[in-house]
């Protein structure tokens, strides 16, 4: 590999024009529509089919196990991998762990890891303001506006949206060749995520019916549930719930979603301390992704786990009704 002229992939040439932070092009919009059809609409249809089928052929323990295992594995891929590791760099890990998390997250069908991380960093930069591609708060204050906002944030934004300039938002990931390779192979992960429960379902039950329901429950229903969970963070948790921190954006906490969505439900906490590996911020708050990160740390495959100090927590905390005097930038949160 040539070592001459190793300019960073973020581009440090003298700029002749202001850098575009996001682009909207028909080509990318077409890809987004295709993705929406294949990976949002189809899993929804699959869920309806699986539900209907359950009246004819009762759901088996195998089906539910396949669902649960794939839900957990891909959810961890998104929450621990896509979100806490690749978007926010809240810890470091071995190359094998990084590639595994990126692949598991890819199986969730939410987009390739580099695109996802770039979009999410942009979301943090512009949360609930112009530039936030999935805010529920930008369609008007009337109740119709709020409903339109929720639908947008939960679902319809994915049909067509501006694409972040990944050279600007994720130069670090572009420099990581293992992650670029894994990100490029996104379609493979999605297919693998469907093939695995289909094959296991078929082999264990020794039947085609088992393979089919494995495909449905471990594949399509699981994708639907995972996607709905992540969408709920964008819609519900930017609309209603508790706020422990007074921020510019409208992010909220919900303890039940914290339990159900791999710890992501502590969303207000997360927007206050984006770089923290812990979203719960207190030991008693259920945040299984954080516990997994600590477990990996104990096993020696993760390190440099970032959490705010007591002092940083203290300076940002505000009881309901009080405004925090500190600026949003007291915590070193680059993304």
């Amino acid at each position, binding site marked *: 590999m040539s070592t001459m002229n190793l300019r960073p992939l973020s581009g440090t040439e003298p700029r002749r*024009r202001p*850098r*575009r932070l996001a682009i909207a092009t028909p080509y990318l919009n077409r890809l987004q529509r295709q993705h929406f059809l294949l990976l949002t609409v189809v899993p929804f249809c699959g869920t309806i089919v699986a539900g209907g089928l359950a009246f004819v052929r009762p759901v088996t323990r195998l089906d539910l196990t396949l669902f649960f295992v794939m839900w957990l594995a891909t959810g961890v891929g998104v929450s621990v991998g896509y979100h806490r590791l690749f978007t926010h760099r809240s810890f470091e890990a071995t190359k094998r762990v990084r590639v595994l998390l990126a692949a598991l997250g890819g199986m969730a069908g939410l987009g390739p890891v580099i695109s996802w991380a770039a979009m999410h960093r942009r979301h943090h930069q512009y949360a609930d303001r112009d530039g936030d591609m999935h805010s529920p708060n930008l369609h008007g204050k009337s109740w119709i506006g709020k409903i339109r906002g929720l639908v947008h944030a939960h679902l319809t934004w994915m049909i067509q949206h501006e694409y972040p300039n*990944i*050279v600007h938002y994720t130069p670090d990931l*572009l*420099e990581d*060749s293992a992650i*670029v390779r894994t990100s*490029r192979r996104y379609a493979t992960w999605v297919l693998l995520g469907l093939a695995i429960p289909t094959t296991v379902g078929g082999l264990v039950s020794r039947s085609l019916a088992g393979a089919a329901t494995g495909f449905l429950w471990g594949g399509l229903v699981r994708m639907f549930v995972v996607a709905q969970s992540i969408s709920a963070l964008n819609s519900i948790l930017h609309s209603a719930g508790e706020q422990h921190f007074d921020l510019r954006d409208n992010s909220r906490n919900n303890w039940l979603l914290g339990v159900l969505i791999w710890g992501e439900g502590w969303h207000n906490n997360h927007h206050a301390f984006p770089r923290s590996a812990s979203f719960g911020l207190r030991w008693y708050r259920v945040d299984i992704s954080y516990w997994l990160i600590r477990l990996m740390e104990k096993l020696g495959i993760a390190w440099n786990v970032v959490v705010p100090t007591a002092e940083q927590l203290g300076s940002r905390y505000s009881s309901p009704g009080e405004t925090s005097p500190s600026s949003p930038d007291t915590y070193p949160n680059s993304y």
Partner: protein
Amino acid sequence: MSANNIDAASIQQFCADYVGRLLGTPAERIDPNVDLDSLGLDSATAVALIMSLEEWLGLELMPELLFEYPTIAALSNHLATRVAVTAQRSA
């Protein structure tokens, strides 16, 4: 604002370097006459190349260019022409 050092050859070198870095291959092994998607770029990495070129060349570029000019050689020739035209206009 000097654009007179930027010709098709230097743009081609930039692209080969950049794509090589993205794919983990030496730039010399990137064939400039092979379609970029055959080389292994996906839509995200193709956009990264376009946005880097946009920044370096000071032109607004769209990913759709890669449909018309799908190889590094074709793209570089096209962009060199655009750079020359822009330089003439501002001269």
